[in-house]
């Protein structure tokens, strides 16, 4: 469950790069570890985020988890649907469960992101991308 088309961080975020626009969410591994997500604190549109800086908070019944920005830039879109339906993160972490879109200020940072294979190695999953 780690699409090859996405980039990843060791903090369990995924990033879908489209030019300078980077759509961000948390990985399938992260949503499974957290369990039922019940609350999401999103950044504000227009907020400036720094790579590896806290960008959002995802809370499950049992745990509070910070989400870090995979790249530096400006938040240009947030997934408002998560306010009423935080469970979208569990149901569809790479689709409807996206968190926000960052307009990257420094595309050189893209090279620092992990491939699906690198990420799978970090979480101890090897083999096919079937997850």
């Amino acid at each position, binding site marked *: 469950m780690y699409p090859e088309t996405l980039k990843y961080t060791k903090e369990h975020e995924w990033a879908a790069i489209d030019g300078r626009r980077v759509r961000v969410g948390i990985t399938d591994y992260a949503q499974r570890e957290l*369990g*039922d997500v*019940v*609350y999401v*604190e999103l950044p504000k549109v227009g907020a400036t985020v720094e790579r590896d800086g806290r960008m959002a*908070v995802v*809370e*499950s*019944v*049992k745990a*509070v988890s910070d989400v870090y920005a995979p790249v530096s830039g400006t938040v240009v879109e947030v997934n408002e649907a998560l*306010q009423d339906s935080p*469970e979208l993160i569990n149901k569809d972490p790479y689709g409807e469960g996206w968190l926000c879109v960052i307009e990257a200020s420094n595309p050189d940072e893209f090279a620092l992101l992990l491939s699906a294979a690198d990420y799978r190695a970090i979480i101890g999953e090897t083999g096919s991308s079937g997850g």
Partner: protein
Amino acid sequence: MFEFAGWWMPVQYTGIVEEHRAVRERAGLFDLSHMGHLVVEGPDAAPALDALVTFDVGAQAVGQARYTVMCLPGGGIVDDLVVYREGPERFRLVVNAACREKDRAWVEQHLAGWQATLSDLTGDVALIAVQGPRAQELLMPLTRGLDLDALGFFRFAEAEVAGIRATVSRTGYTGEDGFELFVQATDAERLWDALMERGASVGAVPVGLGARDTLRLEARYPLYGHDIDETTTPLEAGLAWVVDFDKKDFIGRHALVQQREAGPLRRLVGFVLEERGVPREGYALLDPESGRKLGTVTSGTLSPTLQRGIGMGYVAAGAAEPGRLLGVDVRGRSLPARIVKGSFVPIRTRSRTGTRKRPDQATG
């Protein structure tokens, strides 16, 4: 899996919210074999125990269970527990797993001079709870030798469940009707499998510690080590109803009488967040106007039933009245929270005589 008081226990089987809803709507099975089981017996068992707990043991019938606390001389709570009177001279104490060693030492110390002995059956006894509106329907066809429908709330009796000798108790920690089954540990797996198999017909699911916590919190039952401990008294914790002040004496009585007269300085309140957010243990409770700290959250969660943040915490007695607005400091933001009276969701347990509550009494 998660280690709790030396036991490996699942936080969840399929998902906390799903398990929680199953118990509110249908039924759930809980393996609670980690709970401590202490037995006090002997000719002096009743008077010896009476000196330790806050209810009148002399008035307890055989077959009756009582929720109670043991207090320190200063009124702080050693543990909260359920005392089952199994015979005129035999009592079973079901205590918190994390308190078992402490409780055993505390009880043993106070049995000195009495003709009563203490044995620790934890490990030999398994406890499986069946909770939820369909718990009785699940259990009935498996049960022989006991009319479950006639078993009142906080009453227990011997029976055969799925061919296994069990003590069946109409008790629980969820706010729903339900039962707790005590069996020999060696029979536990067989009983669990039989309950799971039969449970499929009513939509029962296994429930882990995560949903156990959200269920008890919605019912506003305190959890030892979080909402109550040795530094809190039953009067501060809203547990005055378990203290029988007509009793001549019990450990802590003097301090509790004084506190009752003076009025506790702080109280455990329940609150509901008025905005989105999840209160958590350790978060500060604030005065919403001045931002001054009033107390600390002792338990909190997002209520799966209400879809709102709920919690408990201690505040100064003057700031504890229902309806009052507090702030909960969630990562530096003060979220408004309203103090509420009573449980967060309707309590739907049976009456003491075993009859179903009328719909207008069970407001849910």
